[in-house]
């Protein structure tokens, strides 16, 4: 029982308990807060493993994303029927079965990996080599992931512009009709 094991036990149980909180809490804002703690716990696990960049990225992307979720939770459901969630028994059964199957799958996938040791900071590459490898500059023959990455970003941009256009379309037509 080393310090890393103890910290892992604490973090993992906090993450798991808050994940349960997401599922079990009735209020949508509270569920989002529990989700925030789950994602924070995961980022802490990354920090514990020495993957600082990944941990910080988890914080800025997912935790920031949860913020938007909270805002939507407040703005869209504060008055409506969704402000408190009621789960029917059938949904419990289906969701529970799916969760159990996924858990079994993950356990099966993780078991063959020998001896996961946290905190092996000496062998990890820093952010500089990682970024250079990402650009395909670091070592010759490496695959450059920059082009696929950029294509994905442009795709996201297209989706954003499309969403904005769809959201505007109705008002736009009405003003045309009046004119």
């Amino acid at each position, binding site marked *: 029982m*080393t*310090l890393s094991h*103890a910290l892992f036990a604490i973090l993992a149980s906090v993450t798991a308990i808050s994940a349960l909180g997401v599922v079990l809490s009735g*209020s949508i*804002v*509270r569920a989002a*807060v529990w989700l*925030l703690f789950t994602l924070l716990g995961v980022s802490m696990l990354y920090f514990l493993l020495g993957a*600082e*960049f990944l*941990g*910080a*990225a988890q*914080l*800025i992307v997912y*935790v*920031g994303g949860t*913020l*938007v979720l*909270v*805002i939507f939770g*407040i*703005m869209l459901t504060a008055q409506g029927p969704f402000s408190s969630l009621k789960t029917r028994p059938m949904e419990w059964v289906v969701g529970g079965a799916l969760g159990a199957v996924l858990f079994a799958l993950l356990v099966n996938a993780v078991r063959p990996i020998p001896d996961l040791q946290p905190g092996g900071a000496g062998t990890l590459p*820093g*952010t*500089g080599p990682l970024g250079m490898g990402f650009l395909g500059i670091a070592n010759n023959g490496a695959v450059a992931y920059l082009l696929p990455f950029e294509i994905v970003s442009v795709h996201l941009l297209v989706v954003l512009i499309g969403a904005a256009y769809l959201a505007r379309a109705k008002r736009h037509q009405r003003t045309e009709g009046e004119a």
Partner: protein
Amino acid sequence: MPEFWSQILPHPWHLVAIGLIAAGLLFGFIGISTFFAIWAERKVSGRIQDRLGPTRVGPYGLLQSLADGIKLISKEDFAPTDADRFLFRFAPYLAFCASFCGFLALPFGAGLVAVELDVAAFFMLAVLSSEVFGIILAGWASASKWSLFGGLREAAQVVSYEVPRAMCVVVPVCVAGTLSLSEFARQQQGGFWNWFVFHDPFTFAAFFVFFITATASCKRAPFDLAEAESELVAGFLVEYSGIRWSYFFLAEYGSMFAVSGLAVYLFLGGWHSGVLPGEPTDWLGFWAGSFLNLGVFLAKCWMLVLVMIWLRWSLPRLRIDQVMTTCLRYLLPISCVLLIGVSLWQLLVPRSIGFVVSCALAVASVAFTFGVIVSLFRLPTSSPRGSLPGVWAGRSTPLTPR
């Protein structure tokens, strides 16, 4: 430091002891900085509004924050009936934790850092932007429409200002080629013309854009739309009282110091004084050098915090649409241009021209600052009897001899 503790305590416990000491020191630093920053805020606002500010408690009113603190602790810890009790009580701690975690990666000198992270700048950005969670939860959990408006405004503002702020952080990162704040400081040692703010015109502009967005992300006036007492009573703070209310202010002043520290590392030379050559810990020894580094770093941080205070009491509050327009239509395109500009500068401009430009920028800035200070001392501080100062000069008063 770890070696010293490993002699006293067995293996895992010396790490725990170091962690506890670092956390305690950081908490103490935030507390003491807030103590004096609130005093400075009240004193500066008093002087700007032609008042005296606090004078009664201690010399120059220095212990005013202590008296305020005692008052806040002894107040009733109150929660509205309709509030979500758990989130209402929890939100102040969440806001403070985010602000506190920002300090974990902030170096105070060579080696004086709680956690030496390779990605410290990125980590600080990520953590400091989660402070808004405490605000929006406080706004929602208070079950008051003023609070909810304040929280939602704050969320919109922070989500928008995060983008130009992050892009302005990338500008000096392009110059330095690292995300580690200690490495930033190491690259800017020596004369002040080596500071990244003077590196090229783009980093010079990026410093000011970063400072504006950082002020906005600390929800300081003129961007304090979340509080906006003239329209929202006190925004997300409406239902809070006593010690929980003060935790929000601990978080606010903490993040002021954190973003000032980040600005000091990214643009203003970190712990290097800009006058002394080399690394002070190398030629002064660890303790004396670290003491000097700490003093220089804190002085720079305090300068930026005082500018924030000065801005707060000089500028009127923006409207919410003006806040969003400032960010999305001006600061965001400007920061995009700065990012592209600094990349092209790094690729195309030869080193000799870059050195000349940075020296010219540094000399011009120092001359400008010096000129402003000299002009302040040359202006008459009071006008003769019967005449008015400034733009009112020449108008008659009841005391003007006819």
